[in-house]
């Protein structure tokens, strides 16, 4: 699991790559909650490099969204591949998140 955090256009982008499961989700959770605790007004989680996600990954994203909602922060998801999208759909959470095809589309929406 690789995690990179960068800032672009006043937006914090967390780039995740690899497989998100029970083994790796605690590290992802720590990174996302670290940024939401700083109350960044604009957060994008870039899942372009994520090949697999289980329910612990979904739970981590839900938690991040809920924290961001508490301070009216924007919390967007970008770059979901078909396999990961299906987990969102099976969880019926695809309508709860703002999901964009890629990071550029997400950045356009958040501007």
């Amino acid at each position, binding site marked *: 699991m690789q995690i990179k955090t960068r800032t672009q256009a006043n937006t914090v982008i967390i780039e995740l790559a690899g497989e998100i499961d029970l083994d790796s989700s605690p590290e992802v959770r720590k990174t996302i909650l670290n940024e939401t605790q700083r109350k960044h007004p604009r957060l994008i989680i870039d899942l372009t490099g994520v090949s697999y996600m289980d329910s612990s990954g979904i739970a981590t994203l*839900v938690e991040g969204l809920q924290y961001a909602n508490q301070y009216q922060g924007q919390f967007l998801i970008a770059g979901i591949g078909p396999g990961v999208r299906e987990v969102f759909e*099976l969880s019926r959470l695809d309508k709860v998140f703002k999901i964009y095809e890629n990071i550029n589309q997400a950045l356009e929406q958040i501007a």
Partner: protein
Amino acid sequence: MDEIIEIQIPANPRYLKLIRKFVSNICEMVNFSNKQCNRITLAIDEACTNIIRHAYGGATDQPIILKTIILEDRIRFVLRDFGKKANLDSIQSRQLDEVRPGGLGVHLIKSVMDTFELKHVQTGNELILEKYFSITKEA
């Protein structure tokens, strides 16, 4: 004669990727579609995650045994643990209109698999999951 393939891992999250590869390869071997292979792999991964979390409470040195049986019309996965007995009455899918972290595993498993049977055995639990070759289950 039924064909049985068995794998055992320690209940350590780092080994979940081995389970996923094992399940994915078997699903490909019996000609499930890519989408079905991905879904079944997710379901078995979630079942193992539940064992790690709930049956063993995070004790990583305990065994998880996954037995796969290829039958004529379906594939059966039998997951065996030797941990805390599950409360069979509390095992259910959660309400999906409630947006909160956690509690999705059983819902995902039941969405994907055609049968779900959890029972107590002498020590621990046994979860039997089946997927028929001819049924396409869409959530």
